[in-house]
């Protein structure tokens, strides 16, 4: 995969490239990020034809699209079909956000019984069509690039869009949050006040926001390129985190990312008892 887009994305005859934004199970926050580019929105719109973006326009243009941004995870049988359609009509497909990239918070159902979840919320669960897993887009169709974050970062979104338009590799460094944290000039919250932090195992991109606000990173950008969760877990325990806390901290918005899943299971192997049998297909990726 990777994003070595060799030729810039251009529509036929040098027309403006056509952009589409799709939504699956999600909170809308990631696609809203596009509308939150207040200073850049009109320039983006001048460079690309925003051809399909239901949140913003009631004139959906027909496919094919040069670049599709996909938000949300796959949780229903219909969506399973729809994502295949999206892939067919898109030259390049980029997933935006933790839902699309890792299954999102709704992937917590993977650790429980979805029927039971249903009955907690709905009196008549039988009306609800849902899959028992929340899976990332890449579990169903090939993806050209995955942009992390819950929500994604606005600068990174613009970077990905402009990189795809210019035909270069997006500059989205997969290293730890610590690199950004130090560049920003934060004092490490773990070292300076013993606050547990997932920064060392989490991918950069947010600009080290949480430490800048005196709290530990909670991993909303998912695992960094070479996360040593075991080593971090030892330290987090030293700082006073209990086993259930450790399990919970990895089971939030990126629970479906393998290293985080692993980390939560490592933290408490016993918790595995009443969950799915090991080895069973987890519907994840990699």
């Amino acid at each position, binding site marked *: 995969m990777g994003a070595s887009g060799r030729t810039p994305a251009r529509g036929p005859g040098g027309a403006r490239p056509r952009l589409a934004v799709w*939504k*699956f*199970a999600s*909170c*809308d*926050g*990631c696609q*809203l*990020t596009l*509308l*939150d580019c*207040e*200073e850049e*929105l*009109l320039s983006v719109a001048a460079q690309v034809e*925003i051809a399909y973006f*239901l*949140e*913003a*326009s*009631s*004139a*959906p243009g027909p496919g094919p699209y040069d670049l599709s941004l996909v938000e949300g995870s796959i*949780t*229903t049988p*219909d*969506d399973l079909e729809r994502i295949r359609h999206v892939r067919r009509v898109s030259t390049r497909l980029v997933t935006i956000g933790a839902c699309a990239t890792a299954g*999102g*918070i*709704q992937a*917590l*159902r993977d650790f*429980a019984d979805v029927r*039971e*979840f*249903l009955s*907690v*919320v*709905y*009196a*008549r669960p039988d*009306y*609800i*069509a*849902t899959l028992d897993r929340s899976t990332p887009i890449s579990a169903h169709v090939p993806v050209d690039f995955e942009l992390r974050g*819950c*929500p994604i970062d606005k600068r990174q979104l613009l970077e990905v869009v402009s990189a795809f338009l210019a035909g270069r590799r997006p500059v989205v460094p997969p290293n730890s949050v610590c690199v950004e944290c130090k560049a920003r000039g934060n004092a490490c919250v773990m070292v300076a006040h013993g606050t547990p932090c997932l920064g060392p195992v989490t991918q950069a991109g*947010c600009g080290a*926001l*949480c430490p*800048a*606000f*005196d*709290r530990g990173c*909670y991993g*909303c950008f998912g695992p960094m390129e070479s996360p040593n969760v075991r080593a971090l877990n030892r330290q987090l325990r030293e700082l006073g985190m209990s086993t259930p*806390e450790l399990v*919970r901290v990895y089971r*939030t*918005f990126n629970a479906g990312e393998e290293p985080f899943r692993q980390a939560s299971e490592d933290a408490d192997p016993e918790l595995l008892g009443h969950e799915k049998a090991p080895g069973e297909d987890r519907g994840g990726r990699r």
Partner: protein
Amino acid sequence: MTHKTITVGGLSRVEGEGALLVRARDGRIEDLELRIYEPPRFFEALLRGRSYTEPPDITARICGICPVAYQMSACQAIEAACGVEVTGPLRDLRLLLYYGEWIESHTLHVYLLHAPDFLGYDSGIAMAADHRDLIQQGLALKKAGNDLVAAIGGRPIHPVNVRVGGFYRVPSRRELAPAAERLRRAREIALRTVSWVAGFDFPDVEHGYRFLALRHPGEYAILSGALITSDGGSFGVREWPEHVIEEQVPHSTALHARLDGSPGYLVGPMARYSLNSAQLSPLAREAAAAAGLGPACRNPFLSIVVRAVEIVHACDEALRIIDDLAEPDAPYVPVEPRAATGHGASEAPRGTLYHRYRIDADGLIGEADIVPPTSQNQARIEADLRHLIEPRLDLPEEELATLCERAIRNHDPCISCSAHFLHLHVDSR
């Protein structure tokens, strides 16, 4: 015999995705469904077993458009359970954060989603081709809201600085200064926005809405208060479960909320305005009067004016708070868990948002209930549509479909925040 089906598939310019299905026979509507594709995400279920400190971050993810609202209702519900009340400068900061979200969310709706309806464009972006300065001014206003949320919360979507009891760190005056600067300009834009939208052409409709909103003795209620209704009812937040009942109706696509036994009430800007307009800031009241709004508003198409007025109020109040913001002693008040149930409600941009949590002595959540504004308005929106369509069934289908979309957008339904809308795939027979 005429038989007519109107479908508006892929409802646009609403946050989230939905569709409308209307079946009519012989000039009468037989069936009207506002369909929501939003797949269920089970927040209430996945909150069980989590720590009482987690709902602000977790429930923010219900809706990327009003995450602060979720954080505020969640914090207050948990604090109520633990017997803590956040007051003074910390409460002021919360309000400030909330105003930021109001400005952002309302402006998004007014400029990019709703105004194009009145001016005949498909989108705000398309509108920019002819009205670049207008849209740019709207974007600047929106940015002022976002910047305020980011200055206090770290980022506009899913802010990181909110915790049960207050904040992780209190931003310094220096950090707030640029946001304040932008707000001053934003207030001017907001005023211009009111007169701009007041000049739109509005269909002459009025509905006999039954309104529900918070009321606070000292302010135009946003962060907290008690509930009041337009038919004179009032109750405390903790009595919510006795008054508002959510039902799953087989022939409907959503959990329908009933207020004191009957369905079809309305929350949101029109409700707030009609119940509390006297408490708006003087500047906002002036703007409302100049725009021709009376003390109440029952024409849903005018909701865009009400939103604009609320933006003025938010800018005005935010500036007032910033100007006399005191430094809190600590960024948060400690909140110790105890076995109890807590209720919290606040006014999200789209209306009253209620949370309830039962926690145990160790702070683990046993039960969570979240009632978002859109699910409360669902039945009322359908009723609006019926009224609107039935006399106009002869219109060309496309025109009718457009009208319906507009009528839905009047209520700015945020479908993704409907934590438990249904995807119904079988009709009732």
